[in-house]
């Protein structure tokens, strides 16, 4: 009896400690960013492009990187969705009884999921060299799209698998084709699509390695797909490398901006997910 009670208490304590560790480090990270970033957080930071060359200067802001990051992450997520939704639908609804094929594809996407982003960056760079594209917004979007596709496919795949098979049986029994059935399934998974968008966008906007060679960097806001684009993670990287304390502080302010953008996307997607789940059959 005593041994069982001890065991119970031991593991409960372990769980509590682990939870404290995780939430504690979350607050520490946010705290650090706030503590070091807020003093440098000026209106100029989010409304102006850098004043003194390559992020190193103390003047101006990081508007170029904010816009660049939104373009890259947004573009990659949208492009990724257009590719991933058909893949996820195909794996789940068109392979019929060929489960081995579906599972093989899932393993392939799991492997892609695990590949470090620098590899996507390098691969994207090779594609760009092949097509003669220079470091640009387009290059960045392509590389980051490659990075987020496995995330999107696997998330959407999991979501589609939660759709009751009977829903598909219902539309098929009405004489619907597979594609018509797929459209109903897509409606049903809309809340899950927003979760997928959130995961993809979060990964895309925070990744440095994939945009390092592909998007390039610039002090200006890109006005076409062929111009180089700055991104927030790279801006943070450069600013942190500066010996000047003030520029380092601006790195934390940039990190704060990045965190806030991710926070907004998180809230937005969960609101939308909730709104679109009201029609669902469970």
């Amino acid at each position, binding site marked *: 009896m005593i041994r069982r009670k001890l065991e119970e208490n031991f593991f409960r304590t372990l769980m509590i400690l682990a939870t404290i560790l995780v939430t504690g480090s979350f607050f520490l990270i946010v705290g650090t960013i706030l503590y070091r970033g807020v003093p440098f957080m000026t209106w100029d930071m989010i409304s102006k492009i850098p004043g003194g060359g390559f992020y190193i200067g103390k003047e101006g802001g990081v508007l170029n990187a904010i816009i660049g990051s939104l373009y890259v992450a947004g573009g990659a997520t949208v492009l990724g969705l257009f590719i991933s939704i058909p893949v996820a639908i195909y794996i789940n609804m068109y392979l*019929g*009884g*060929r*489960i081995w094929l579906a599972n093989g594809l899932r393993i392939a996407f799991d492997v892609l999921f695990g590949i470090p982003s620098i590899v996507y960056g390098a691969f994207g760079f090779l594609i760009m060299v092949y097509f003669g594209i220079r470091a640009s917004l387009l290059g960045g979007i392509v590389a980051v799209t490659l990075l987020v596709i496995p995330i999107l496919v696997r998330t959407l795949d999991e979501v589609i698998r939660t759709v*009751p098979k*009977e*829903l598909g*049986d*219902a*539309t*098929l*029994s*009405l*004489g*619907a*084709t597979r594609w*018509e059935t797929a459209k*109903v399934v897509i*409606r*049903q998974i*809309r809340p899950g699509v927003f979760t997928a968008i959130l995961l993809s966008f979060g990964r895309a906007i925070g990744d440095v390695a994939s945009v390092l060679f592909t998007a390039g960097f610039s002090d200006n806001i890109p006005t076409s797909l062929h111009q180089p684009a700055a991104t927030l993670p790279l801006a943070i990287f450069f600013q942190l490398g500066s010996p000047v304390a003030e520029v380092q502080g601006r790195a934390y302010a940039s990190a704060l901006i990045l965190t806030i953008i991710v926070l907004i996307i998180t809230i937005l997607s969960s609101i939308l997910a909730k709104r679109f789940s*009201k*029609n*669902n*059959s*469970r």
Partner: protein
Amino acid sequence: MTNNPHISVQNLSVEIGNQQILKDISINIPNKKVVSIIGPSGCGKTTLLKSLNRLLDDTAEIKVTGKVFVDGENIYDPNAEVTHIRKKMGLLSQRPYPLPMSIYDNIAYGPRIHGTRKKVVLDEIVETQLKATGLWNEVKDRLNAPATRLSIGQQQRLCLARGLAVEPEIILGDESTSALDPVSTSIIEDLFIKLKEKYTIVLVTHILRQARRVSDYIIFVYMGKIIEFGPTEEILLDPKQELTREYVKGYIS
């Protein structure tokens, strides 16, 4: 009773993996009658039902042999148009699965995919089918509300109305009342009795009382084979086969 079959199953066998689910099933299902398929869990009742509108097509490692004639057309013929076959048969599953859209759109869904676009026509179909399933007075003021807002019993009637909207000839019910409360169950049962004037109805059920109440004929399936097929009274009160007798008396389940 077999001189006017609506569905004629001939030597149907279904294998999934290495397991034989249905063995050499042959049966004629009469026109505009209610036929119940009864039998213990796992005997193949649902597989038999789903083989009638080819819903088994996407099952992994499945092998179907034999023929199923609906209106004289073999639905397992390689040239058969599967959407056309399925349109003839409305399916009512164990639990209601309304489509993720409004009450109105649920019913209009079928007619729309088959090409009906005119609002006036759709309005009329929606009203007719909601009236046929006794839902009209309950939902006429909130046709644009999500279908999921309805109670489970109402949802099941909505699913029936959705199926009827594509003008099928046959209704397939797969334990359609098993998730419902007693009141909703009896509403659905009454609907089946009413609907048999216009439709051939095939029901899978494990409730003998229900089979007795609604059906004209009963098929008793055991271990993938049809043991006995006959008029309801005969199967339930005076079965010819020993196995049927044991099942209806509750010795085997």
